[in-house]
């Protein structure tokens, strides 16, 4: 829409002002890294964070979420009633959330997700440097974003350039921040910074992300799956930390007398032994190798096919960081690419 400027010294007041009206969730420091958490003080926010263990999708699809409660025969749906600002989302995660929007809106819309989405304002952040050796956003074309956000911040020395994406973002800025229209000099600095950033991000994947569906299409029978399957713990960490995973299990919790309780959903993982087992006992993905293949197929092919214009992997590198046995998307895809060179 338009480009605004917030001076660096006006950022904390902006955050504090938003906190007066919204639950503001942003990156904060923890023992050795960062996580997205509800701010209790504006000074907690760490916009210079590199990455988090769990992606910010937890704001839209909480790790555990009550769907309804029951008391004898009475059922009452449970909806989250908060208005939120999700602050400091990196563009890789933003791309992932746009995919989730599509997945949850498609067919019968998931009213719980849609409700959270409708009451969440997203303020994303441009990455000007690579987060660590595991990310490969450049290959996945998620290094920047031109839509999907309400506001988008780009840090330029003493000020932030603010890209306004929606009317909700415009209102948030107008009501809570001190900002001004970008001057010609500020726009020039933005352009320079943006064009200089690309060379700082290495290309790690030996193919373009958009060619992944084709590569995966010819890789179903690759011996690589058995090979990596031998190392895999099947621990599900890769799924839990993935911004584009959204599988969940549904469970019931009851009171001691069994008469009241709730049904909730909780994040699940296709890498766990029981994920695809049906009641009669048949397990449709029996081994670590089968389950790993499914995951990589989903990331590289199935999601792109099911939701055209979206990707199943955004190159954030979280699964590579989480994996103790070095099963990484870059490693797997480069290896498959080499097999088909």
């Amino acid at each position, binding site marked *: 829409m338009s480009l605004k400027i917030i001076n660096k010294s006006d950022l904390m007041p902006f955050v504090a002002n938003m906190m007066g009206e919204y639950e503001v969730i942003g990156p904060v420091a923890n023992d050795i890294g960062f996580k997205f958490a509800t701010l209790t003080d504006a000074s907690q926010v760490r916009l210079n964070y590199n990455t988090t263990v769990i992606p910010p999708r937890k704001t839209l699809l909480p790790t555990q979420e009550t769907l309804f409660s029951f008391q004898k*025969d009475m059922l009452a*749906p449970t909806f989250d009633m908060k208005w939120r600002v999700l602050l400091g989302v990196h563009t890789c995660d933003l791309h992932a959330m746009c995919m989730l929007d599509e997945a949850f809106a498609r067919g019968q*819309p998931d009213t719980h997700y849609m409700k959270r989405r*409708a009451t969440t304002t997203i303020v994303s952040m441009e990455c000007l440097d690579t987060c660590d050796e595991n990310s490969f956003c450049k290959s996945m074309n998620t290094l920047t974003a031109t839509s999907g956000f309400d506001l988008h911040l780009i840090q330029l020395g003493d000020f932030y350039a603010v890209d306004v994406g929606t009317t909700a973002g415009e209102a948030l800025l107008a009501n809570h921040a001190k900002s001004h229209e970008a001057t010609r000099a500020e726009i020039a600095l933005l352009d320079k910074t943006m064009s200089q950033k690309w060379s700082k991000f290495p290309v790690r994947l030996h193919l373009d992300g958009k060619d992944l569906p084709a590569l995966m299409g010819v890789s179903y029978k690759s011996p690589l799956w058995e090979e990596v399957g031998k190392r895999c713990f099947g621990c599900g960490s890769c799924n839990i930390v993935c911004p584009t995973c959204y599988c969940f*299990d549904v469970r019931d919790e009851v009171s001691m007398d069994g008469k009241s309780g709730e*049904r909730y959903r909780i994040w699940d993982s296709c890498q766990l032994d029981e994920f*695809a087992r049906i*009641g*009669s006992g048949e397990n449709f993905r029996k081994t670590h190798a089968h389950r790993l293949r499914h995951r990589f197929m989903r990331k590289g092919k*199935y999601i792109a096919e099911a939701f055209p214009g979206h990707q199943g992997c955004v190159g954030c590198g979280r699964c590579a960081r989480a994996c103790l046995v070095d099963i990484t998307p870059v490693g797997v895809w480069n290896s498959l690419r080499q097999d088909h060179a």
Partner: protein
Amino acid sequence: MSIPAIESIYLPTLAWISKVETMTATEKFYTVELPRGQSLGHKPGQFVQISLNGIGEAPISISSSPSRSNGKFEMCVRKVGDVTTALHNLGEGAQIGVRGPYGRGFPVEQFEGRDILVAAGGLSLAPVRSVINQIFDHRKKYDRFIILYGAKNPGELLFKEEREEWKKRSDVEFLETVDKGTPEWTGNVGVITTLFPKITVNPRNTVAITEGPPIMYRFVLMELLGKGIPEDQIWVSLERRMKCGVGKCGHCQLDHFYCCQHGPSFNYAEIKGVMEAL
């Protein structure tokens, strides 16, 4: 700022069990009544999520045909997990939750004018019965009607009375078999594929519908294709783990399809390239 009122798609509708019949040692047959005489409005081959508060939900195929619904539907439940075990302990008048119907059923209206060949294995006669009775109730719209049915042993054959009726009817060719007989069993012994040499079909005009345990598909499909029935005239129904029923939770995924949404009924031409399907 106001938040629009919305419904949860995961909230079940309360319904009642109006009739329970014991079918085999592990299977019971339920008639379920919906509130205010409302109809489920399903298509043959669809399923519902049956919910018991505090226990959970399980996907169950609808066994009755839309043509015989009348504010009720029927389902056959095998006791295999928490929900189905708890269901087996419920009697007439008990309240249960229902969500659905879900999934894509068999497009029976597209089959009009065709010969219909149904091949069902084991418990799968229950869901396939929704198609069979729909066809019987509109029998004139279809040409020949063949039903092949196989079970492990005579004790596992379902719907005795209906099968007896099919045997007597002149407008259906009904053949049944058991993998392993008993001294009293006088019928065919052998897996379901042993019934195929006993029938001849006009492949170009035949629509085949097959459903059974996972192991059965490959062999039955070979028979059907071997008889020259075109791939897009063969329909299968696939069983996968389902939690949500609405294409979100990911458990039933088959390549880029969700079994609960794009299926459980699939056309063979659609899924023969889907690596994990068959």
